[in-house]
């Protein structure tokens, strides 16, 4: 690794694409933070995941890494198709059964404006603290990496400001997207073993979260976490 002393070169196609995609992903995450309906959050999540696959394809083409194409395809299948499908079915079932669709809308603990403001503070903190670390490398676009850090913190915020299990799961999935972005830009030639770990992470999220959300819905007849306060101290 070369440190901060190196002169920054003009961005190539890969670095430019990575930075743009990272910025758009962060914007989408703010959209998720602002969106009132969990259904719309799922849609935004699918869009964000599609961008990750695009980035993987760009890197695969730029660096001639054929296995990244496979990763892009698998990631798209899981994150753009499977996870949103599962979540939407769970939300649909919850909406159909309930008198009032609690948990699907109106589970925010903060007003949209305050949530977005808090998100901006988190994002700025993540961006500048990571940018200040001085991990600069011709292969790793520092801006995209810093944006990934910002996205991670906003994803934690996303989990915290909602009081329903579906939105918390979406927050976790957004966190996973942020980490995938960081991994793609920091270590583009991910070894197969690490790619496996990522796919595994996703599979877990979809299967275990799906099962527990369903169990919670059957038990509590809503997706709200308001009654998950028995265990304290």
């Amino acid at each position, binding site marked *: 690794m070369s440190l901060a002393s190196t002169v920054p070169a003009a961005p190539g196609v890969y670095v430019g694409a990575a930075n743009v995609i990272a910025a758009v992903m962060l914007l989408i995450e703010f959209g998720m933070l602002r969106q009132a309906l969990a259904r719309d959050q799922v849609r935004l999540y699918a869009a964000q995941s599609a961008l990750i696959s695009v980035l993987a394809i760009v890197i695969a083409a730029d660096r001639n890494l054929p296995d990244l194409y496979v990763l892009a395809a698998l990631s798209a299948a899981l994150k753009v198709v499977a996870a949103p499908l599962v979540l939407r079915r769970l939300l649909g079932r919850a909406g159909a059964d309930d008198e009032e669709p609690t948990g699907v809308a109106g589970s925010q603990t903060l007003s949209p404006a305050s949530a977005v403001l808090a998100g901006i503070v988190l994002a700025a903190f993540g961006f500048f603290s990571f940018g200040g670390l001085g991990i600069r490398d011709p292969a790793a676009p520092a801006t995209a990496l810093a944006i990934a850090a910002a996205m991670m913190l906003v994803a934690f915020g996303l989990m915290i400001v909602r009081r329903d299990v579906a939105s918390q799961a979406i927050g976790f999935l957004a966190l996973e997207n942020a980490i995938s972005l960081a991994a793609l830009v920091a270590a583009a030639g991910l070894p197969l073993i690490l790619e*496996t*770990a990522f796919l595994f992470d996703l599979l877990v999220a979809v299967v275990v979260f799906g099962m527990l959300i369903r169990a919670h819905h059957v038990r509590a007849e809503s997706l709200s976490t308001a009654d998950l306060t028995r*265990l304290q101290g």
Partner: protein
Amino acid sequence: MIGVVLALLIVPLAAGITCAILPTRTVRAAAAVTVAAGIGCFALVLGVVPATAHRDLSYLGYLRVDAVSAIFLLATGFLYAAVAVYAVGYVKRHEELYARRFYAGLNLFAWAMLAAPLMSSLALLWIAVEVTTIISALLVAIEDTDGAAEAAWKYVLIASAGLSLALLGTVFAYYAGSQVLGEHYNLAIQPLIAAGPHLAATPVRLAFLLALLGYGTKVGLFPVHTWLPDAHSEAPTPVSALLSGSLLAVSFYAILRFYQVAVATLGTGFPRDALLAFGVASLLLAALYVFGQRDIKRLLAYSSVEHMGILAIGVSFGAPVALAGVMLHVLAHAAAKGNAFMGAGVLVMKFGSKQISAIRGGLDLLPWSGPLFLLAVFALSAMPPSGIFRSEFQIVYGGFGSGNYAAAAVLIVLVTVAFFGLSASATRMLFTPAPLRARPTLSRGEPSAWMVIPVIAGVAVLFILGLHPPAELTGLISRAVAQLGATR
């Protein structure tokens, strides 16, 4: 030897699958398979361990056993066997579907925990720890009560978020490693430690911190411990024992691997300071929360946070005797906490409540489990001659020897505070006589012999570790200490 290591991976997996696919009305067969797998795996671990006291074993590129991993294998192997026997008595009162799911989950859970220390690469280690999360979360939810559903949700959300950070730490470890070892570096642990002095400092520091926070979530370090008391109290008791005695230790093992890399690159200062901060904070929180607990299993869960804090502090001392204490503590804590949870499970079954206020006169009503639970609590409080006394003594001695006077003194004070909290509750449950109106419904006697035998084995292990650890074990521990890079 490769056969033994492979068998260690195959036996519990096969047992889990067998229990899941057995035809209905075969709970006894599932119980037999589980007991055989548990005891068999412990025998296999005992077969592997002596070799690792002299050399590292490495197979197929993906499997590797050295002295450090052998210690954690021993802890998990012993507890798996103990809990498998205990579960036979525990599951008796449950319906058949529950029992089969439970046995399948228990074996798979043990499989993932035995696999983690066998992995040669940081990525595979992460996957193994992730598998432990999935299976244990489903096992926490298996009771199908409101409390269990809540605990399982909190556990899976918090632990998965934590493990995501650990995954990012693993990515940074790859980033650091690939700069020196080339693009085709596959995250193997040993080459990374060997290349330590040449790695870039910032990514390694970042990787260590992320791993400490991420895996620390599963270890139960403050402030990311919040899932732990919930999951431990709501899980079926045999699972609580495995969670506390084994899973927390396996996650700590992952931190130790990152610690080895960090020490090789950054020197001892930064990694030890970080561990010390997390350790002292966890110990402080746990010592205070042990007081005033109303739920017997939450009480023991906070005691686990306390002991994980002690492990972190012990590693931060860095002196060889302290590290030897840490390795011994992993084993002794597995036995003592397993015993405490298994004893608590009998109390809960006898009195039909987890509330400490509802459990009275345990010593009268339970001729075996009462005294054994008392012994387990004393062992956890580091009373001699239990193994925990020896291990904590070594850690404190190493702390004073390496000049960490303040931290060692804080350790002594907080462990004493926790001792008072733990023994006060235990005394109330065991010695205060049961109220007269409850007497006719509760008769003197044990619910099941299956639930006593493994606890007696645990007491034997604690005494052996405390009075005279076998020479093979001390040899293994000294090799592990050397591998962890002890310095005075």
